[in-house]
């Protein structure tokens, strides 16, 4: 357990040192979402209607941005070998990486989503449902992204391959996340959608680190 925390602390420290890379995902999220009112016009009824979709798609794309370097930097400078030799199973290393990714990317996205949704004129009842969906949603994106990043590690053009691998896997997250916010703004319960998201998280939590760990092992070979 202390080894796991040491890996996590190391990741967080590195993210803080590479502050520009860390902020890039957040700024990308805010800027792309801010483009929509400019492109489709500021009419509140149109914007408010599609606001959950905008927030979710932008969050999904922004979460993909740092994945390329998640293992890439460690792979190139030999640190991955040292991580694999730290005495943890590779799945635990992948889980620590996923947690670090969520803390420095997912959590800021979740926090920034609230003012963004207000800016996009989202209806009042939809906002809590959107945030409640983004909480497991961003965790899921971190887990799926970590698995994808580990699997394409060492492949040529891995950076191009990565979104092609992760985006299809992330579609259920998008569907239930947007559905939760839409249901709330239509006066329905968002509960079933949130529970489905939680179920997805419960499945991804053990499976994604295992897949990522296998990917790391084969990349090291």
């Amino acid at each position: 357990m202390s080894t796991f925390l040491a890996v996590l602390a190391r990741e967080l420290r590195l993210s803080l040192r590479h502050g520009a890379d860390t902020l890039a995902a957040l700024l990308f999220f805010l800027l792309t979402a801010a483009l929509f009112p400019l492109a489709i016009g500021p009419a509140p009824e149109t914007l408010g209607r599609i606001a959950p979709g905008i927030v979710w798609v932008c969050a999904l794309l922004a979460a993909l941005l740092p994945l390329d370097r998640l293992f890439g930097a460690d792979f190139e400078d030999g640190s991955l070998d040292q991580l694999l030799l730290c005495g943890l199973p590779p799945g635990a290393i992948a889980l620590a990486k996923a947690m670090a990714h969520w803390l420095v990317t997912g959590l800021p996205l979740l926090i920034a989503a609230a003012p963004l949704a207000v800016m996009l004129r989202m209806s009042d009842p939809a906002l809590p449902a959107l945030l409640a969906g983004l909480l497991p949603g961003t965790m899921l994106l971190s887990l799926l992204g970590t698995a994808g990043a580990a699997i394409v590690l060492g492949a040529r053009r891995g950076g191009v391959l990565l979104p092609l691998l992760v985006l299809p896997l992330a579609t259920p997250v998008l569907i239930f996340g947007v559905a939760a916010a839409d249901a709330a703004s239509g006066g329905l319960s968002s509960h079933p959608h949130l529970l489905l998201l939680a179920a997805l998280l419960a499945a991804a939590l053990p499976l994604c680190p295992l897949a990522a760990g296998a990917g790391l092992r084969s990349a090291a070979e």
Partner: protein
Amino acid sequence: MLQGTGLAAFRGERLVFRDLDFAVAGGGALLLTGPNGSGKSTLLRLLAGLLRPAAGRLTWDGADALADLPAHARRVAYVGHQDAVKPALTVAENLRFAARLSGGSVGAALAAVGLEGLADLPARMLSAGQRRRSALARLALSQAPLWLLDEPTLGLDATSVERFGTMLLAHRANNGMAIAATHLPLPIGDIAELALPLNTPPPLAGGGRGKGAVVTARPPPPDPLPQGEGE
């Protein structure tokens, strides 16, 4: 006691070595020699558990070493030909992760490689030799009985090579083992040699055993260590 029997490994599609036998006892050291591409680095990665052997057995005190990889990883300190030093962190911060795993002191490890004055410098400012030394400082922190060294002294000046020799001797006196691949002479006294031939791939059938080298590395004779490096 680390023992390899009939080890073989592939690098991509190419068989780099086969039928490799060797044994290293506690306190022993083994030098891997051979031309470029003969599989020295591959063998070190195999011994670290990063690469699965295509054939053969690797045993630690008689038990299969690679059956439990995380447990094997705790027995191993590996310095690859990449330094694994993060340019954005300071020299001391780079070592803190290794120190948290082993519980050693970062200051003492830096002193062992003569980098104590540069502890707070970002690692991106280091020269190639200094970066190598900070990678070697991880060895000073590690409690692992088996050191796997890939060209450990590449880029080091004479003083640093001597300091590294002191570290290696202390490690061996502590009943530790070291396996190193290098083309540069290592200042650590007697060392067994395992020569890896350059494998121009023969057809796999009918090769038979006995082509690989058989080497046994024993601990150095008990007397020669000066007792000065305890502090």
